[in-house]
Structure formats: structure tokens, C-alpha cells
């Protein structure tokens, strides 16, 4: 527990919280763009860039590694778009291909890097599952600023994002630059992934971009509140997961954050006010009772069928 008391740990906590908020907001965009899987593909596609940046630099310098990650993530996104536009391969297949090919390449390069002199101590492996405790103050600043940029880029043009997601054709008719927004969206997803890479890792960051938004959907019928709740869920999961992982020496942060956010999802799924399973069950029971007022219908020897609604 003592690790939480150090000022560095507090900064790490703030940065994972900001990461959660940013990921929650971007996740809501992805949810309504129906591209939740895209974030997973982009995250995996970041890994080779990190290792290549390490090769070029010869040391672990976080901003440079993140730039490498962003570049290879964007290349992955371009590949997916290219496959979608110029071949007969469908979206999900294209994403699956890019995800596994880039990740495989990343792991291969990582193995080579670890065999290099000094490579083993580089801690590059931490990018796979996340290692928030390994972050130094400078890293925390970098992540936090990136996260704040992402948050601002979602909140400021809020009504534009809403229109873009709901009705892009109409939006274009009004003069909204749809192509630019599509590009900005991809850049923001990559940025959110990059922010989370050190704390959560390339494999699990996708969960932070998917689960908070899905959980929020169970509580509200308003796009604005879905954003707010998704950001809250993400931020809370980031903070709680980081605290738990700080309890043990060398515990990876990513998995704990994901377990926390998954617990929130389970709770939302069961008890959510909008189509949560419990509410649905109660409504169904009530409707059933309204249709057949007698709790036990008398048996007159006629087989009656209760209509399921």
C-alpha cells in the first residue's frame, strides 16, 4: 500500500484515470460508429511501431516509442481501409487480418529486441499487458496531456460528433466535413490507444474502448449521458485497477483495470435501468400478469396457451 502514498503513484493514478475517461469517450464514438473491433485492431497494430522505434533509438524513450506506436497504428488503419475499398474482403476479416499480422510482427521484433544487448532490461514486454508502476513522472505528463487532448477533441465538437454518428449523409448536406471527421476519428482512436499502451498494454486496451460504452448503454437513453457515464466508468476502472495492481510487486496493471471494468459491465447488464436483465424480467412478469389476471388459471380441461410477449 505504501506505493500509493508516493507522489509518483498519485500521478500514475491520475493518468490512468484520464486514460479511462478518454477511452470511455472514444469508446462511445466507436460504439455508434459500429466499429468497436476497429480499436482492437489498431491497438494490436501499434506493437511493431514501438519495437521499431526502440531499434532506431537504441534506448527506451517513451515519447518516441509512442510516436512509433501511433505511426504503425495509423498504417494498420490505412491497411484496413485499403482492403475494404479495393478488395472483396469484408470489414471484420480485414480487421482480423491486420490485427494478427501486425501483432505477430510485433512479437517477432520484440523477441529480437530482447536478445540485443541491454534489450532485456528495456521493459518493452510491459507494453503487452501494461505496467503502470514502471511509469516515471515524465511518462505520466506525456500520457496525461495526450489524454486531455483526446477528451477536448470529443467534448468541444460534441454536437458535430452526434450528427456525424447519427446521420452522416445529412451532416454532409449541412456542410460538415465528413471525410475530415472520419480522419480525426481514426487519429483519436489511435491516440487513445497510445495513451493506454503503457498502463494497460496493447492487448487489453481495446476493452477500455469497448466495455465502458456498452455498460453506459444500460443506464441511459441520451447520447450526452451515455458519454458522461462511459467516461465515468472508464475513469473509475482506471483508478481502481491501478490501486489494486499497486498492492503487489510487479503486478500488471492492464488485467486489473479490465477486471474492474468488466465487473461494472456485469452490474450494468444485470441491474441497468434501460433493458438491464432484471428490469426486463420484472417488466415481462408484470405484462404477463396483466394479460392473465388469475395467478393460477382454473383448469377446465381446455389446454390454454399463454402467449409469450
Amino acid at each position, binding site marked *: 500500500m505504501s506505493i500509493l502514498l508516493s507522489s509518483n503513484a498519485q500521478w500514475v493514478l491520475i493518468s490512468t484515470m484520464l486514460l479511462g475517461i478518454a477511452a470511455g469517450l472514444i469508446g462511445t464514438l466507436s460504439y455508434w460508429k459500429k466499429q468497436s473491433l476497429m480499436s482492437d485492431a489498431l491497438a494490436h497494430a501499434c506493437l511493431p511501431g514501438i519495437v521499431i522505434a526502440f531499434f532506431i533509438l537504441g534506448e527506451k524513450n517513451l515519447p518516441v516509442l509512442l510516436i512509433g506506436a501511433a505511426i504503425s497504428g495509423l498504417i494498420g488503419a490505412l491497411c484496413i481501409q485499403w482492403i475494404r475499398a479495393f478488395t472483396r474482403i469484408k470489414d471484420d476479416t480485414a480487421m482480423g487480418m491486420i490485427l494478427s499480422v501486425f501483432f505477430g510482427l510485433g512479437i517477432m521484433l520484440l523477441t529480437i529486441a530482447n536478445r540485443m544487448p541491454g534489450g532485456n532490461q528495456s521493459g518493452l514486454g510491459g507494453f503487452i499487458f501494461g505496467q503502470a508502476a514502471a511509469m516515471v513522472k515524465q511518462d505520466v505528463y506525456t500520457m496525461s496531456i495526450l489524454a486531455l487532448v483526446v477528451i477536448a477533441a470529443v467534448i468541444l*465538437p460534441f454536437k458535430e460528433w452526434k450528427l456525424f454518428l*447519427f*446521420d452522416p*449523409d445529412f451532416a*454532409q*448536406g*449541412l456542410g*460538415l466535413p465528413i471525410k475530415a471527421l472520419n480522419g480525426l476519428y481514426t487519429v483519436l482512436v489511435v491516440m487513445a490507444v497510445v495513451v493506454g499502451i503503457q498502463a494497460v498494454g496493447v492487448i487489453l486496451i481495446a476493452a477500455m474502448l469497448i466495455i465502458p460504452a456498452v455498460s453506459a448503454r444500460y443506464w441511459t437513453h441520451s447520447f450526452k449521458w*451515455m458519454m458522461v457515464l462511459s467516461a465515468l466508468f472508464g475513469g473509475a476502472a482506471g483508478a481502481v485497477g491501478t490501486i489494486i495492481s499497486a498492492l503487489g510487486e510487479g503486478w500488471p496493471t492492464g488485467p486489473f483495470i479490465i477486471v474492474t471494468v468488466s465487473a461494472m459491465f456485469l452490474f450494468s447488464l444485470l441491474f441497468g435501468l434501460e433493458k438491464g436483465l432484471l428490469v426486463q424480467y420484472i417488466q415481462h412478469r408484470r405484462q404477463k400478469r396483466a394479460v392473465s389476471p388469475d395467478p393460477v388459471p382454473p383448469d377446465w380441461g381446455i389446454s390454454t396457451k399463454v402467449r409469450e410477449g
Partner: protein
Amino acid sequence: MVVLSVNDLSASYRKNVVLHDVSFQIESGTLTGIVGPNGAGKSTLLKSILGLHPILSGSVSFFGSSLEKVKKRIGYVPQRGSVDWDFPTNALDVVTMGLYGQIGWLKWPTRLHRKKAMEALEKMGMADYAQRQISQLSGGQQQRVFLARALVQEADLYFMDEPLAGVDAATERAIMSTLQELKAKGKTVMVVHHDLQTVQDYFDHVLLLNRTVIAHGKTDEVFTAEAIAKTYGGTLKLAKEGTGYVHIIKQ
């Protein structure tokens, strides 16, 4: 005055050319029905005109100018099925979207904008549903919301993609009286329409389309049995009754 001029427009969808050599001019203050069989390229025509679908060749001009310069004077009602009605928002909010151009980018709608949107909903008989989730509206109500959203744009030239498809009779009447009102105000409206029976009652002009313009002009002059047969090919049988109305029997 010519408000829309389409010259030799062609467009493809996937690998097929769906529109070729489409040329026509629309006069201001007209209400035109675009009619043709499935796959004739009616929706693609609207989208190509509005720059939502890439064109292969040809040109389009609005009010003698380019689309970019007069975007604010053009209103568009997409097909109802083109959006996800599960999107978490209410009817009033969707109508307010029609004002986003006037509100300005990055700015938030004010009470005045909400009032304007509310008035448009009232006009479409939807005032009681303003706060209703759009997922809980019937098909007809959803279409009215779309119409209201176009009305708040206060455009001079409207394009509507099948606004009467799958709506109830009351909604059809409400929409048609709104269109007549727009026309009375001197606005120009182009409507993709699928019901041949009502063309003569609803539209003063008709554009018969099957990958290219088969006929275009005043309804009572161009909407003839021969022209319809030519547009629909062998898929329809026509029977003419004493009233002069064209009755169509689908095979």
C-alpha cells in the same frame, strides 16, 4: 427560373453503371416526383446531385452556382432506413440537428433554436412526441421527424428520398400538405416516389427514371401509359379505364 440543372450525369454503384446521360432542369416552385422501378437509380440520383455519391461524369448546378456555395439553401431528407433509430436521442433533438448549420460549428443550440425545432414538430403534428425516444416512434412518426428536421433548415430547394414509403395514411396526408405548403411558398421540391397510383394527385411535374431520364415534364403531359411502360419495361401491365386514370397492375 431554373433552380437545378443536371447535365450528362453518370454514376456507378459497385461495378455497375446505374445512371448514364442524365440531363434535366428543374424550375423553381415545382413539386416533382421521381418515379421508376427498383434499381432505377432514384436514390443514387439524389445522392449524386448532392455530392454524397461520387459521379463519373457530368455536372450539376444549383441556382446557377456550385453546391458548395449554396449548401444552406438546400434541404435533404434521407431514406428513413438510412439511420439507426436506436441511437439514443429524442425527436426534438433530431429536429434541432437541422439547425446545426445556422447555429454554427462548435456552438451549442440555444433556447431559441429549441423553440424553432418545436414549432416544426408542431407543424408535423408531433408536438406531443418531442421528448420521446426516437426508437419508440412508429415509422410514420419517424418520417415526420425527418420532415420537421428539413423544414427548420428553411431551404429553397428540397430533396426527399421516399418520404411516403411505409407510412400510415395520416402521415401521408400530413407530409403531402406540407409539401403543397412549401410549393405555395415558392420552394422547389423533388421527391423520390414509389406509388404510381398517386403520382397524378401529388406532383405537378414528374421525372420518369430508369438509369436515364425516360421522360420529364408536367405530369398531365408526360405521365402517359406509354412512358410508364417504357420506364418499367415488361414488369407492369397497364389497363386504361374510362376515367383517363392510369391503373397499374403489378405482376
